[in-house]
């Protein structure tokens, strides 16, 4: 063996960290102990660079049953029910092997949810990949979607939402985030604790193999060089088995339902080392583990390999001796392997030790205070430096605010039908190619599914008493905002998420976040991270919301260039009554006329300085205009809007047909998508009409040519059309109820601006602009399909 | 070698399950199109099937093949969609 320093450095530990380990042990560690420390003290497991910042986030609230730090956050939703939720990243594994990386990401987060005793009822997948003009990026997207589809569908958990972003900064390092929601009866909540001295630790599920060895320290901490050979890294990619996971879900939920376990934890990053040390540490006890009892996939596995393997679909259950036989029966029913691998032990002088044996009759191979592994990794306050000012290019005669206020990118770019249509078409990308590959309906909960902002699900799950409530869930990110200003960018992203929830009629209960950043050893990245956390904190405090879970993914970069800061914000809301959901079912007829309004924000007919285009898709992606000052929201008005609009959309009597928020692509994109979505409803209805017998086959879209259009009388500015100022919405209202709707908005103190009235087949603005919607419709339907096929 | 003293051998039998020629083969056609796009325009047919390796102990090769033939008819191939062929890849007397 070469000298110790070489070994620990290869494992990613620093000289100082090695000294700390000696301090914890009071002696030099052996190789197994060193390996266990290295995986537990990795960035991925210990959050050592981010924890100091994350401590600033508000995590308390009346409804919070479990905050960050456990396997998942849990909130109380009444009716003796609770929701478990979590978000994670699986970025680096997905860069190497997109399908397996994304699949195992879904598998991992499901275990985090059902380990709390919750039935997972929904997945959401925010994805960030490079532009699809490059084959490698298409390979990423195709594989990622296939991975999520094959795993999620087979394991029997619907994927109900997510988002898709394209940007060159993700070309070598796509982001695959995944959020999961579960439902449980409040009194069945189980924590990942190894309580009760003498209780047994049982390993459930798949065999332990050499897959994922070093995955934590190698995969989650090495950035990618596109010139290197990916195949060299393949052995550490884990392979998912959704069928094993499905049986594991059923077995674990049955164990929890019958109250046969005192604690349970999934095996994720750092495998057995993490599960055993964390469960023992949480209970302030120790654990003895016998690795000779671990069911293995390969012979000749070393203790280090067994203790750090990241083989998928495994759980560690803590049971009393009396319940062991019942546990074995349930495991047998679901064809799940189960081995007693350890027992909970008394602390020695109030220190709980994790001891690893190869047969309990032998001397221990490792003796480590459990808390030193689980809780006592060093925390770093890494240096931060504000990046140099982002330079702004002026390519189409735009002039910028010079007074230092957040008012910017005020173009003198003139509008005409051709340019506006070209810009609009580039922004209309229908994600259906993605979500139709996902089962998004299982459990009959999906009331509003993917492709519509927030997903709305019945608050229900198999084995749980029915309620009339619904939950509303969304994930949102806008890295272009955050690249310009990570504080306000993150703040506005929170507002966008809250708006998505509010316009479904729900009230946001809690926030989760997945913070995807570059290399934390780069002080500019650390500055972005710190500012982003501050923005999240400030927004959550402004709207009175707790953060109940989060995940940090650092080292996202390609060839040394860090990604744009990409905080993904998840929000979950509660809707009181599914009977009050806004559905368009009875209003799909060509004979009605509609008015359209914009709710909240500055007057759309003015050239208000708050309609900044900085960080918008129009500026950054269509016209390569980076930088500027972000749009500015009125916080008090927005807070009022979010509360009141949720009440308004529950009102069935004011002629409201559709509502959508203004986000990526600005007002014009929102309007176009609403018109297209409504026309789709009409199409499907027409097909079901018994009189439409002549439609038997062929391209049905072309046979139903009516498209809802809009005529906007005013000339709107480029800023008004394309600004992504969040906290606003567009509504479609029955024309004969339009006055009633307007007065209702006045009563609620919601600013309400008339946009235009319905027409047929065209989108018209002022006297000069007219866009053919039949063409836009075709483009929207096929945009992603034609690229990906 | 064998503890029971019988003359058993370990065979590795390869079952090749093929898409029937008359049945539409979306996977094969898609690959054929991709190959043609790459310039391989002389490819007239691509068919995707499965190769299944079965390790089985038997007294002799005929018995091994018979056993695998039966299991292929019952489970490994679907007669509506698939044809198959069976061959012994390896034999080993250390059963």
């Amino acid at each position, binding site marked *: 063996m070469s000298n110790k320093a070489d070994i620990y450095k290869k494992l990613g530990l620093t000289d100082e960290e090695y000294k700390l380990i000696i301090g914890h042990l009071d002696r030099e560690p052996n190789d197994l102990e060193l390996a266990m420390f290295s995986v537990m003290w990795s960035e991925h497991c210990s959050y050592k660079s981010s924890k100091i910042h994350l401590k600033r986030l508000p995590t308390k609230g009346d409804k919070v049953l479990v905050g960050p730090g456990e396997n998942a956050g849990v909130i109380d939703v009444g009716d003796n029910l609770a929701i478990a939720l979590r978000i994670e990243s699986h970025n680096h594994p997905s860069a190497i092997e997109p399908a397996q990386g994304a699949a195992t990401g879904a598998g991992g987060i499901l275990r985090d949810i059902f380990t709390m005793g919750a039935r997972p009822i929904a997945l959401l997948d925010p994805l960030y990949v490079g532009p699809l003009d490059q084959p490698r990026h298409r390979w990423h997207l195709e594989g990622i979607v*296939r991975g999520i*589809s*094959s795993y999620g*569908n*087979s*394991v*029997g958990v619907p994927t109900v939402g997510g988002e898709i972003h394209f940007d060159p900064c993700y070309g070598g390092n796509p982001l695959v985030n995944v959020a999961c929601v579960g439902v449980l009866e409040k009194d069945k909540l189980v924590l990942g604790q190894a309580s009760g001295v003498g209780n047994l630790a049982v390993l459930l599920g798949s065999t332990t193999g050499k897959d994922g060895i070093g995955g934590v320290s190698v995969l989650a901490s090495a950035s990618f060089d596109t010139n290197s050979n990916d195949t060299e890294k393949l052995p550490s990619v884990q392979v998912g*088995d*959704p*069928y094993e996971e*499905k*049986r594991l879900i*059923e077995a674990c939920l049955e164990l929890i339902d019958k109250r046969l376990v005192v604690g349970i934890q999934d095996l994720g990053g750092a495998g057995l080392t993490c599960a055993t040390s964390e469960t023992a540490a949480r209970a302030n006890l120790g654990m003895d583990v016998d690795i000779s009892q671990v069911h293995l996939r390969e012979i000749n596995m070393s203790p280090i390999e067994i203790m750090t393997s990241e083989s998928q679909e495994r759980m560690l259950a803590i049971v009393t001796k009396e319940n062991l036989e019942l546990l074995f029966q349930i495991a047998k*029913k*679901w*064809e799940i392997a189960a081995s007693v691998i350890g027992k909970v032990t008394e602390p020695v002088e109030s220190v709980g030790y994790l001891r690893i044996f190869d047969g309990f009759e032998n001397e221990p191979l490792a003796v480590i205070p459990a808390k030193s592994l689980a809780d006592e990794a060093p925390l770093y306050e890494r240096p931060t430096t504000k990046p140099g000012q982002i330079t702004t290019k002026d390519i189409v005669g735009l002039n910028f605010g010079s007074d230092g206020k957040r008012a910017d990118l005020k173009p003198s770019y003139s509008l005409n039908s051709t340019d506006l249509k070209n810009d609009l078409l580039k922004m209309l990308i229908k994600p*259906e190619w993605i*979500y*139709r*590959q*996902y*089962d*998004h*309906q*299982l*459990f*009959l909960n*999906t*009331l509003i599914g993917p492709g519509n902002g927030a997903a709305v699900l019945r608050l229900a799950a*198999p084995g749980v008493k029915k309620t009339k409530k619904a939950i509303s869930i969304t994930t949102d990110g806008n890295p272009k905002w955050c690249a310009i200003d990570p504080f306000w960018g993150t703040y506005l992203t929170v507002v966008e998420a809250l708006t998505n929830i509010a316009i479904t009629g729900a009230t946001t209960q809690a926030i989760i976040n997945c913070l995807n950043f570059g290399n934390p050893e780069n002080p500019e990245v650390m500055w972005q991270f710190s500012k982003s956390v501050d923005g999240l904190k400030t927004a959550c405090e402004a709207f009175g919301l707790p953060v109940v879970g989060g995940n940090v993914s650092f080292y996202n970069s390609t060839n040394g260039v860090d990604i744009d800061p990409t905080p993904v914000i998840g929000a979950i809301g509660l809707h009181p009554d*599914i009977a009050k*959901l806004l*559905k368009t*079912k009875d209003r799909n007829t060509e004979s009605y006329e509609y008015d359209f309004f914009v709710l909240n924000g500055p007057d759309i007919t003015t050239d208000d300085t708050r309609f900044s285009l900085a960080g918008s898709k129009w500026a950054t992606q269509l016209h390569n205009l980076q930088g500027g000052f972000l749009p500015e929201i009125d916080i008090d008005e927005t807070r009022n809007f979010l509360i009141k609009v949720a009440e308004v959309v529950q009102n069935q009597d004011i002629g409201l047909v559709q509502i959508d928020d203004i986000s990526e692509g600005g007002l014009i994109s929102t309007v176009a998508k609403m018109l297209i979505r409504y026309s789709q409803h009409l199409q*499907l209805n027409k*097909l*079901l009409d*018994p009189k439409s017998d002549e*439609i*038997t*086959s*062929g391209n*049905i879209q072309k046979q139903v040519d009516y498209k809802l259009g809009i005529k906007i009388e005013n000339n709107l500015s480029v800023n008004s059309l394309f600004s992504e100022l969040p906290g606003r919405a567009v509504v479609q209202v029955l024309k004969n109820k339009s006055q009633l709707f307007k007065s209702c908005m006045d009563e609620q103190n919601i600013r309400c601006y008339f946009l235009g009235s319905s027409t047929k087949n065209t989108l018209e603005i002022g006297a000069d602009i007219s866009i053919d919607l039949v063409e836009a419709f075709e483009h929207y339907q096929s945009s992603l399909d034609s690229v990906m*096929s | 070698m064998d503890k029971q003293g019988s003359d058993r051998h370990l065979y590795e039998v390869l079952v090749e399950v093929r898409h029937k020629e*008359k*049945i*539409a083969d*979306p*996977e094969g056609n*898609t690959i054929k199109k991709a190959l043609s796009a790459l310039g391989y325009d002389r490819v007239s047919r691509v068919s995707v099937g499965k190769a299944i390796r079965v390790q089985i102990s038997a007294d002799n090769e005929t018995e091994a093949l018979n056993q695998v033939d039966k299991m292929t008819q019952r*489970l*490994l191939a*679907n007669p*509506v*969609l698939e044809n198959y062929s069976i061959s012994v890849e390896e034999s080993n007397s250390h059963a």
Partner: protein
Amino acid sequence: MPNLIGIVVFPGTNCEFDVAEAVEAVGGNYRFIFHLDKELSDIDAVVIAGGFAHGDYLRPGAIARFSPIMESIEKFAEDGRPVIGICNGFQVLTEAGLLPGALQKNSNLTFLCEPTVLNIETNETPFTSKLSPGSKVKLFINHFSGNYTCNDQTLQELKSNNQIVLTYLNNPNGSTQNIAGICNATRNVVGLMPHPERAIDELLGSDDGLKFFKSLINL
């Protein structure tokens, strides 16, 4: 008394709860039948629910057809009693030889979860008796292997015996003759790829599935 519906659960089945809810929605009773069970004497109709029985490994339905419950289901079907296979259940029934043909991968080689409009071709089955031939329904599909395939002889038999139960208005998966569902020659075994249990409430996008379950409940 409404019929007691037996809902078959293999390891990997995942639509059993949804089928149960659909049965309850029309006032029926159900019992889950685990694949290791064999007892069907109290059951009036069997539904093999969708999902990924045995992980769909090898081929969808291939391993499930050898589960212990299948022997009882074969006898149940021979006695002329109703057996319905939805999605994965349809795949199991073709693998078991209770229905002719096979379901191969969708022609576009991707999973498809989307609404479809279907023509009701016959009401002479226990699952469509309350629907009108020639009418249209909106149901959702959710499958990777829903491309119905059979030889010419089978197709002729299906046609001449009026065994085609449902067809797609706009073929999503490459199925022969737009076939979405069929029955056996004695009409008591029905398999279909779309999921009527997902269409039991306007809030879910359609309630056209209710009539299928009403048919099954009140024979």
